[in-house]
């Protein structure tokens, strides 16, 4: 049974495009996992320092950016000191932009409230190195300001001074954070992941190696709701829902057709015999 799959493609385009043009505003329910991440960050205050690592490539930006923005918004709302860095070359400029954008919204000062260290290759070595000395891995920040002359970093030596690491990732980088920063230095870690990686990391949450997991656009939308600030993820949730529904319907239709064809075949065969 040959079917022109281009009809399916058109269906998907429509399922995404129509809700973008005419939003329906489906309600978003909060899952326990997302609430756990929210609660984890909600106990931090202006004495806390977090490390936000942009561990993703440019191609997954549409999914990763809302996640990063939601978590950063929360951190800046609570006046948490934020140190950004990137372990993928492609994430470097993106991380810098996101951090600056969100910081500007909350009137945060570079160097005092937040700082961006930039990119280091060889992520396992970088993660291990920061356990001894962050300054050793990043002698200067992204703009080449020496580490020692940045006020925010004056009391930050290594993971002992970092309350939480948030890895924004579309791939396997959180594994390295777990294996090196968590296993060796006991660093607390939260992963904000592209949805595709969620099933890969639930075992780590289960084993207590990761403190919380924020997954995909849905996770970002839930977080936006918890913050009371609907943004990009919430806006896209309608399209996401409708596209999922279309695919589910396609699976069902595909099965009905296959079933009908099988039955049809059986009947004609019986007729022949």
């Amino acid at each position, binding site marked *: 049974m040959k079917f022109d799959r281009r009809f399916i493609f058109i269906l*998907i385009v429509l399922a995404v495009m129509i809700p973008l043009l005419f939003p329906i505003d489906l309600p978003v329910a909060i899952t326990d996992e997302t609430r756990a991440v929210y609660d984890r960050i909600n106990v931090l205050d202006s004495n806390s320092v977090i490390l936000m690592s942009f561990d993703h490539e440019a191609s997954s930006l549409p999914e990763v950016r809302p996640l990063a923005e939601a978590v950063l918004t929360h951190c800046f709302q609570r006046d948490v000191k934020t140190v950004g860095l990137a372990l993928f070359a492609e994430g470097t400029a993106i991380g810098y932009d996101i951090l600056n954008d969100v910081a500007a919204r909350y009137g945060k000062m570079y160097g005092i409230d937040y700082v961006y260290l930039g990119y280091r290759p060889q992520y396992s070595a970088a993660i291990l190195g920061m356990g001894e000395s962050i300054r050793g891995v990043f002698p200067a920040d992204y703009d080449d300001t020496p580490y020692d002359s940045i006020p925010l970093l004056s009391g930050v030596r290594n993971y002992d001074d970092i309350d939480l690491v948030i890895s924004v990732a579309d791939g396997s980088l959180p594994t390295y954070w777990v294996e090196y920063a968590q296993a060796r230095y006991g660093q607390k870690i939260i992963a904000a992941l592209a949805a595709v990686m969620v099933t890969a990391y639930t*075992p780590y949450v289960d084993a207590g190696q990761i403190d919380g997991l924020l997954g*995909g656009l849905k996770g970002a939308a839930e977080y936006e709701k918890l913050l009371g600030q609907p943004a990009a993820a919430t806006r896209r949730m309608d399209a996401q829902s409708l596209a999922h529904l279309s695919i589910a319907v396609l699976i069902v239709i595909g099965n009905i057709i296959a079933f009908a064809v099988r039955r049809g075949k059986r009947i004609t065969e019986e007729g022949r015999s």
Partner: protein
Amino acid sequence: MLKKSPILVCAVCGVFMITQYFITAEPVTDLYRSVLDWMQIIFVCALLVGIINVILRQVRMASRPGRERIYPFITLFGIALMVILGFGWGIARGSPFLWVFDNLQAPMQSTVFSLLAFYVASAAYRGFRARRAESIILVLAALIILLGRVPIGEIVSPHVPSVVGWVLAVPAVAAKRAILIGIGLGMTATAIKVIAGMERAYLGGR
């Protein structure tokens, strides 16, 4: 000599890399780091060979007559553009190299990536056939996650998210763990065969 010595080199490197994992002595970790550096440099040299071959291939294609010859010129243009911009004006923030990356390369890559949304749909349509117990479970699990992790599922029933949570946290994790264990064993066995010189496909042998 060039038949046997690679196998020996492979065995020596392999045994050393296993050994260094267990040793904290400074000279060993230093050597380990050097080997990692060598690997990077070997890779870049291989990359140069690969890129030169790409260029030669495109030049060869471009010299064949016919309408097709326009395409290799496009590739050669792309390479030349990046190389000239990158070596001429640097790769720092605000450089033309990054402008081309941001406005041409990255969006094209995201677009190719987003083709997956369509392929996922067509694969779902033709691939999920609930015939036997296994495939029925496969289809059900996919449907539960598909609908359970977006607002639609939550409208159907407030219990949907917790069911989804359970599926993800228990049976899915169990299977994943076992698959990982199997892969770990398979990889280890393959690596041992490689180091012991039994698996030599990469040298053209077997």
